[in-house]
């Protein structure tokens, strides 16, 4: 137990340092952003501008702004949106994060489960037409941008067959189906390709040969000996997978008119809404760092070879 506290504590400290660095970098990059947050700049007078700058604290020296901002973050205050009616950034995020998280989780579960199945089938039928077609699917899923799938899905299932809503977030789970599928292609493709390679590797290892020599059938070998060994390393690409999902969701949310955080991000960038951009960047990076922590913990839990400390080795 003490080992766990030490292990997780250490990771959390790294996490905080990473987030601190990312927020600092984001802050100073914001300073370099061309344009200003005030819509039609030509139309506002410099007096008006001055009042606004004072109000948002943008008139202070950069160093002071930085310190104020960081102090705010420490209190959980991410500043005020310059765009959306002066609401606190934290509140905007909180209001919008639900659909994004739901989509993300659904997509990653769907994507990895289908990906693992495809990868295993591919490996079991290595170099047959089955393998070729699943591999091809994976390559398509990886290389075709997900908005293409999104539009295709809308065309087929919403417009032609009319099975599912074309967009919006007003029919509960039904509304989530198409965006989830569109979003799941990338993680599915990644997982399928990854599991295929791992599984082929594992199926050629000595212990599989020994299992065969004990008379166990191929499918049982795949399930009992192959699966776990092939899927454990999948955890390592969970981080990059979540990252690509976050990016992917920006477009998908736009196409399906999902009131999520991705849409918010695009709007805030287009309007130079400094505090919202920073808040969301920090949120995304915190998410990623948290995923990496989860990955580390999962690894220790799932892989018997990894121990928190030596101790129980012989």
């Amino acid at each position, binding site marked *: 137990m003490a080992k766990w506290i030490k292990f997780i504590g250490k990771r959390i400290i790294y996490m905080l340092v990473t987030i601190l660095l990312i927020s600092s970098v984001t802050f100073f990059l914001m300073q370099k952003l061309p344009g200003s947050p005030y819509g039609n700049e030509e139309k506002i007078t410099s007096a008006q501008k001055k009042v606004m700058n004072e109000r948002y604290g943008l008139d202070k020296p950069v160093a002071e702004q930085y310190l104020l901002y960081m102090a705010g973050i420490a209190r959980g205050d991410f500043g005020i949106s310059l765009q959306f009616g002066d609401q606190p950034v934290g509140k905007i995020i909180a209001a919008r994060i639900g659909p994004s998280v739901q989509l993300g989780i659904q997509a990653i579960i769907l994507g990895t489960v289908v990906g693992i199945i495809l990868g295993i089938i591919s490996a079991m039928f290595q170099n047959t037409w089955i393998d070729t077609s699943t591999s091809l699917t994976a390559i398509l899923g990886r290389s075709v941008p997900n908005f293409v799938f999104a539009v295709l899905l809308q065309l087929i299932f919403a417009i032609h067959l009319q099975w599912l809503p074309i967009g919006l977030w007003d029919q509960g789970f039904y509304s989530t189906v198409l965006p989830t599928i569109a979003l799941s292609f990338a993680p599915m493709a990644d997982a399928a390709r990854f599991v295929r390679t791992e599984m082929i590797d594992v199926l050629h290892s*000595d*212990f599989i040969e*020994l299992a065969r*020599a*004990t*008379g166990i059938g191929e499918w049982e070998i795949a399930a009992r000996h192959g699966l*776990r*060994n092939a899927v454990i390393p999948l955890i390592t690409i969970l981080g990059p997978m979540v990252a690509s999902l976050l990016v992917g969701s920006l477009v998908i949310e736009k196409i399906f008119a999902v009131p999520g955080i991705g849409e918010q991000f695009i709007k805030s960038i287009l309007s130079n809404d400094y505090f919202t951009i920073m808040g969301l960047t920090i949120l995304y990076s915190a998410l990623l760092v948290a995923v990496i922590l989860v990955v580390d913990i999962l690894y220790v839990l799932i892989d018997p070879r990894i121990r928190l400390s030596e101790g129980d080795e012989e």
Partner: protein
Amino acid sequence: MTEKIVSVKNLQVSFDTFSGKVHAVRGVSFDLLRGETLAIVGESGSGKSVTCRSIIRLLSKNASIDEGTIFYEDEEMLLKTPKELRKIRGKEISIIFQDPMTSLNPTMQIGKQISRPMIHHLHLSKNEAKRRAIDLLDLVGIPNSEERYKNYPHQFSGGQRQRIVIAIALACNPRVLIADEPTTALDVTIQAQIIELMKEIQKKTGMSIIFITHDLGVVAKVADRVAVMYGGKIVEFGKTEEIYYLPQHPYTWGLLQSIPSLEETEEDLYAIPGSPPDLIHPPKGDAFYLRNPYALEVDLHFEPPLYQVSPTHYAATWLLDKRAPKIAVPASIQRRYDIYHQRHKEGYDE
């Protein structure tokens, strides 16, 4: 019931590879007798593993068995369906491999790996299988078997892992154990222990063992009979004593000369010069021709037949032909002959 438990006749196995058809086994015949240990000795690539894996048909996809028959008891293994084969593998005939570090599933408790074949073949319940697995761990000399049942492979040393692999192989009381260089990856003291263990178990269960090795030195400790393989063929076989003290084939001489001994220093250590034959285009004559200091003209053109040396001892070399010139065998081999004749003197006098 015959004496033979496994009988291989004129086995020919080849592999389709990118660079051509590899003729890995080219007409091998041998019998494994009940309760005996047969050693198969030969350099790397001589076809030992392929020969033995053919018995349970555990060959890679690009392999084909082109000729021959393989009988286990009175069942022809080459006619079996995959399903029938699975009933024999691990139950009647078990195999263990060279490298204990990779032979076990790293993410599965070793106990589960031992009990699995028993649940599969003997239809034991989980609990019965576990009890037997613990007994097996005791048998192969893993202390604290009860607790260690739940451990993973990385928690054991190389020697212990090979013991566990042996436990898996023995789980269903097989009649035949194929041990494919089971001690090659282990250091010398552990080697001796593992060999001791196998002999002990054989004494208890009466199973037959095929012991593959490239080290003739190990063979004396385990084998009743020895088959020497070269280039996909058996070039000499006989009782262990006959192979050791009355070897006839120049290749066997070479192997005997390359056994490291305590008195010899590194530099003295002999290695047969040259390299094994090309198995994609096997030579027309004797495959050992190019490396054989005692080669005859005839070796280049014709393969030597198996000559009978004694009712139990055969060798495939033209040197045994009546027409062959008398040659002086290497001094160290002559010493072995002398020892043999010394031992059998009384016998000869009669």
